[in-house]
């Protein structure tokens, strides 16, 4: 007698405490929401909003350091925060299941996929081995895995990321739970794989009528899957409602800001001057990795092949592609952090592809790079000031002048010059990325390479850093090479776009052309997979 009006999950006034030395008193404060049968509720928030803590509280997976301070979590009427461990074990998988962000680490590498699903059935049911195997094959067919008979005997490393996530979903759903919790299930996947997994989740949810609590930071994904949306900020629920209401007419200031920060998929449409001087030209650039040593046959991987690009002063070239497409390889060749195998790299017409590392002084000055991971881009044992003046000091600028330049740059990236005395661990991700940009600018480069420079940042911070990069490009008339997997970000910043796949440039042209009239099949597939592409976000 289950109908759509009974809540599968009801969270009432949930408060989860943080340890006394934590950043704030509670990880989650007074959060209440419900998930109905046959409904997908999206929990959206930036990092540190407590969204994963809520998922762990429901599953009873909270570490001892994060106790549930008050409130109830009712799973089909039963308060799971108070039941004994034994009962919790029965409920997991049978009534509620969870899938995780990283399918490689969530699966046991030394067990075959079949054994891992079988384990669930063995623990929770009294089925015979033959019945269990039949059920395993059934569920693998249901999550649309090709050749389930073969997959049953495969180890996780033999499957692709998307297939692994399907195995995780199969394992979670094999006992037909009433509630599925998906904690950022597509964040580690490429955009085309992500689209397939999202479709699968939607499909299964419809077919089985279960409730889904979907945790994500990506508003595109929200627009694609959610029925209702709950927005979290620093452990508090700031807004909850129907998808269209929240995404198109957000009420709370924070939601308005977040949605306003989501870049659109439409290119900015800025005019591109075709006659500005060329800063960078690559001609048939290639990088081949060969593995194998003395005793094994040599294998070759073409990380980048036949890449021909150019960037003019004051323009931004975007390289877009999925993981393994070779986009970072190209960037690292251009900065000469790795040596290209073939081809030319011309900076102002001078080929630097073959120059020995010792003769690259000029290049280092003209070309600077900002990396993806703000937490690893700064030496933890050096002050911010030391980091920013390191380059100028290498080129013989007196210390006092270098420090003066560093202070000016700090103002440029909107940070207090006093922070030069401090160490990197005192700053958040966005602030560190600003410091990295200042460090690159201290060299007064002509070409700035941004290798996924905003990918690790939360959407609101990402918007700020993108605005900063744009301002810098305009002010110094910089040429910029912008590498990203995120089509929305690419649409915001790029004048020209190169789409890479399998080490090759499959489409290359003006951003307006590529985004509005993609010609290559792969580009079209990539754009079609972008989450929430047809959804018009409002309120901003």
């Amino acid at each position: 007698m289950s109908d759509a009006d009974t809540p599968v999950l009801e969270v009432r006034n949930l408060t989860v405490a943080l340890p006394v030395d934590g950043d704030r008193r509670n990880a989650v404060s007074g959060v209440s929401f419900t998930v109905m049968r046959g409904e997908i509720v999206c929990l959206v928030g930036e990092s540190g909003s407590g969204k994963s803590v809520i998922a762990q509280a429901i599953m009873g997976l909270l570490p001892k350091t994060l106790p549930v301070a008050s409130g109830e979590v009712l799973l089909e009427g039963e308060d799971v925060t108070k039941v004994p461990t034994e009962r919790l074990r029965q409920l997991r998988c049978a009534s509620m299941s969870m899938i995780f962000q990283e399918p490689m680490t969530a699966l046991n590498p030394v067990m075959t996929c079949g054994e891992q699903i079988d384990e669930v059935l063995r623990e929770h049911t009294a089925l015979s081995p033959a019945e269990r195997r039949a059920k395993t094959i059934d569920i693998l067919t249901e999550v649309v895995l090709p050749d389930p008979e073969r997959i049953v005997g495969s180890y996780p490393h033999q499957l692709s990321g998307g297939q692994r996530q399907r195995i995780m979903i199969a394992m979670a759903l094999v006992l037909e739970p009433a509630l599925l919790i998906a904690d950022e299930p597509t964040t580690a996947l490429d955009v085309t794989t992500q689209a397939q997994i999202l479709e699968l989740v939607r499909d299964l949810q419809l077919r089985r009528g279960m409730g889904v609590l979907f945790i994500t930071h990506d508003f595109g994904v929200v627009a694609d899957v959610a029925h209702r949306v709950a927005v979290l900020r620093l452990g508090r629920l700031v807004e909850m409602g129907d998808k269209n209401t929240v995404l198109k007419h957000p009420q709370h200031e924070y939601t308005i800001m977040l949605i306003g920060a989501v870049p659109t998929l439409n290119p900015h449409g800025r005019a591109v001057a075709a006659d500005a001087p060329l800063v960078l030209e690559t001609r048939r650039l290639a990088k081949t990795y060969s593995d194998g040593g003395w005793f094994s046959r040599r294998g070759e991987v073409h990380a980048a092949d036949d890449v021909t690009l150019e960037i003019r002063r004051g323009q931004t070239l975007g390289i877009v592609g999925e993981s393994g497409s070779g986009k970072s390889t190209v960037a690292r060749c251009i900065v000469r952090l790795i040596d290209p195998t073939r081809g030319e790299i011309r900076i102002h017409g001078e080929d630097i592809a073959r120059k020995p590392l010792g003769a690259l002084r000029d290049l280092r000055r003209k070309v600077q790079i900002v990396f993806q991971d703000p937490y690893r881009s700064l030496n933890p044992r050096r002050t911010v000031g030391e980091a920013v003046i390191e380059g100028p000091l290498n080129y013989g600028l007196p210390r006092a002048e270098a420090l003066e330049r560093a202070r000016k740059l700090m103002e440029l990236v909107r940070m207090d010059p006093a922070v030069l005395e401090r160490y990197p661990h005192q700053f958040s991700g966005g602030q560190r990325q600003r410091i990295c940009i200042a460090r690159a600018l201290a060299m007064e480069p002509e070409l700035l390479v941004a290798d996924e420079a905003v990918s690790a940042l939360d959407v609101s911070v990402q918007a700020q850093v993108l605005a900063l990069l744009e301002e810098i490009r305009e002010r110094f008339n910089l040429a910029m090479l912008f590498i990203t997997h995120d089509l929305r970000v690419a649409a915001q910043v790029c004048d020209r776009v190169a789409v890479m796949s399998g080490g090759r440039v499959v489409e290359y042209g003006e951003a307006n052309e590529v985004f509005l009239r993609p010609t290559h099949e792969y580009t079209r597939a990539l754009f079609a997979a972008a989450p929430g592409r047809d959804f018009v976000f409002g309120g901003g």
Partner: protein
Amino acid sequence: MAATDADRYAALSVESADVRPQETAWQRVRRNLSVRIGGVVLVLLLAVAALAPWLGTVDPTMFDAGSRDLPPGAKGEMLTLDGEVIKHRFHFGSDSLGRDIYSRVIYGTRVSLFVGVVAALVSLLLGVFCGLTAGYLRWLDGILMRVMDGIMAIPAILIAIALVAMWRASLVTVIIAIAIPEIPRVARLVRSLVLTIREEPYVEAATSLGTPTWKIMLGHILPNTIAPLVVMGTFIAASAILIEAILSFLGVGLPPDIPTWGNIMAEGRIAFVQFPHNIFIPGIFLTITVLAVNILGDGLRDTLDPKMAKRI
């Protein structure tokens, strides 16, 4: 519009939330119980070593035929070389030559701690040099690390005995003999650290800032290996103290007249059944010292290497 947008983002973004300052490594270290226990014991031992002449001791090499094989706590007289007779209480008894074991054990603390610390420093210094070179200069890596593998294949105590046998037994020889077998372990640790750290984006950033290789090695890579090296150093010091005692006990360490715990035990071995305290007392000091150093090292590892601490 753009400016107000930016301000609004800045105010609402999660980045504007309070970041509570984290404890520094040094603060964590000071709070750790193991570090405190090990540290206090070691400070006491250091004080004993430094204040040896003022702790009611006599010259540890002085012997007196009249007071041989005394039990602990016995009172007696000692005749110095100048012909002076001094009254002395033998807290730990005396050995078969009539030397005061208490004085010898107290002075032995000096030798043990000195050997432990200096051997650890020497092997760290040479090991860091080899490890940095092997980790950063790829063409030297193969040769250097195979040499290190070679040294590791010979039992440490055998190398030490061979080296001491080749030269005259002295403090320097013993320290070098103890330090050399430890070098490969340090070199391996440093090399593995260098190989991970050199792939860090901040090292690549330094490369692209035009920083010369030697500056990257000394300025970026070496400082980030300090924490594991400190931990490694304590464990080397503990094993160096033990090996020094073993070498002395086997009679291939410092000359027998120098008061070291190993020498005292070697001397007491002959009369062990009658006077077991000759071996037990220096043995207890040795155990306490090594235990204290190891506990300190454990505590340092837990606090300086949080990944390790979580795993335990």
